[in-house]
């Protein structure tokens, strides 16, 4: 079994790399801990505590600055927490091998997701559907890169919500933030501007992880001496990573993302098929 210092260091490195690439710290920490001998379900359950920590820590400034769309977040959280509860119940019920295989499949899917060509739409050119308009899903934020206030409207709220339920299920089942999926849904379905999408996704991750963690606390899978060092290491690592992010070249970050997602998928596949988890 691993040591406390090892868990902190692994989580610190994973939080750092996960934050740099946008893959998320938990997607890297869980396979590493499983590789070190931690049972997969315990690693997943305990990891959700670090997802809450990184989400609340990194969201606070975006929320204060008004970049995050709080109303859209609250609407979408109805769907993500439902998905997360269902996903966590699934992990409690199915075999560890099935969980590890699903983890591997999701990492491969997130690799493919980056291949999907997204055509960014001008925030002002989005035509709202009736339901999104009725909900009043719109907003504005100050964009320092263009030096002005950017107004935007969201559309396809219902379809976006349903897709977010699936992203929530992935997050709850696998103990990850599933940020790559959430951001993709925000931008392709809801037509959310990138900055709003990233910050709103960050906020939603915390509430989604709370729903999953609620299930794990009551199912005997949460391990205190694993959850606490993981949360501490991942939060510090992601804080360091986000500071370095602006200095890194996009092409290097993209390569790193591919390498990490492929490594995470391979580790879980190896544990599931060769070692039986």
């Amino acid at each position, binding site marked *: 079994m691993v040591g406390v210092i090892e868990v902190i260091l692994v989580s610190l490195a994973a939080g750092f790399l996960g934050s740099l690439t946008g893959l998320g710290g938990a997607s890297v920490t869980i396979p590493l801990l499983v590789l070190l001998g931690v049972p997969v379900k315990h690693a997943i359950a305990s990891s959700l505590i670090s997802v*809450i920590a990184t989400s609340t820590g990194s969201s606070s400034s975006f929320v204060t600055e008004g970049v995050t769309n709080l109303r859209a977040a609250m609407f979408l959280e109805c769907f993500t927490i439902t998905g997360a509860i269902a996903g966590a119940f699934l992990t409690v019920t199915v075999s560890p091998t099935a969980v590890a295989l699903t983890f591997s499949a999701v990492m491969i899917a997130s690799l493919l997701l980056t291949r999907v060509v997204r055509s960014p739409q001008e925030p002002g050119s989005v035509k709202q559907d009736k339901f999104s308009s009725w909900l009043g899903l719109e907003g504005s934020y100050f964009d320092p890169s263009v030096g002005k206030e950017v107004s935007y409207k969201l559309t396809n709220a219902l379809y976006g919500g349903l897709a977010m339920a699936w992203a929530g299920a992935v997050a709850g089942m696998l103990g990850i933030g599933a940020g790559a999926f959430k951001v993709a849904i925000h931008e392709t379905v809801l037509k959310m501007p990138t900055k709003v999408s990233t910050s709103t996704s960050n906020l939603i991750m915390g509430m989604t992880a709370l729903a999953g963690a609620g299930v794990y606390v009551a199912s005997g899978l949460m391990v205190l*001496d694993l959850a606490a060092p993981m949360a501490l290491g991942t939060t510090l690592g992601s804080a360091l990573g986000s500071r370095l992010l602006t200095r890194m070249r996009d092409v290097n970050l993209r390569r790193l993302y591919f390498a990490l997602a492929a490594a995470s998928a391979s580790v879980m596949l190896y544990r599931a098929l060769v070692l039986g988890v």
Partner: protein
Amino acid sequence: MRLERVLGLLMLAGTIASLALMALGISLYFLQHGEEVSVSERWVVRSRSFLEFVASIGEGPSLSVVLMKAGVATLMLTPYSRAVISLVYFAARREWKFTAITGLVVTALSALLMLPAAPS
């Protein structure tokens, strides 16, 4: 004060407080039990709900466990408090659609965190 500012401060304070409690708990753990992480009965949360988990914080069995439990509980209560504060804010502003949506989130989370799970 704007809702955004209140929630931003709440999340920052919740994160700092919980990480500080966990860091203290880990330090004591290290001193009392050594380096090894053990996925054993002593450290696995055996509560039937989050509420029961919170109620068990003071029971120990050691100060390091108390601190780690308090850190985890504080962290889990942070997004929950965000939903409750948002609910009060939307209701006070008579934004009924979002009061209903936020009410749904708070109700679902409250049921999940407070109702005990059925024994397996």
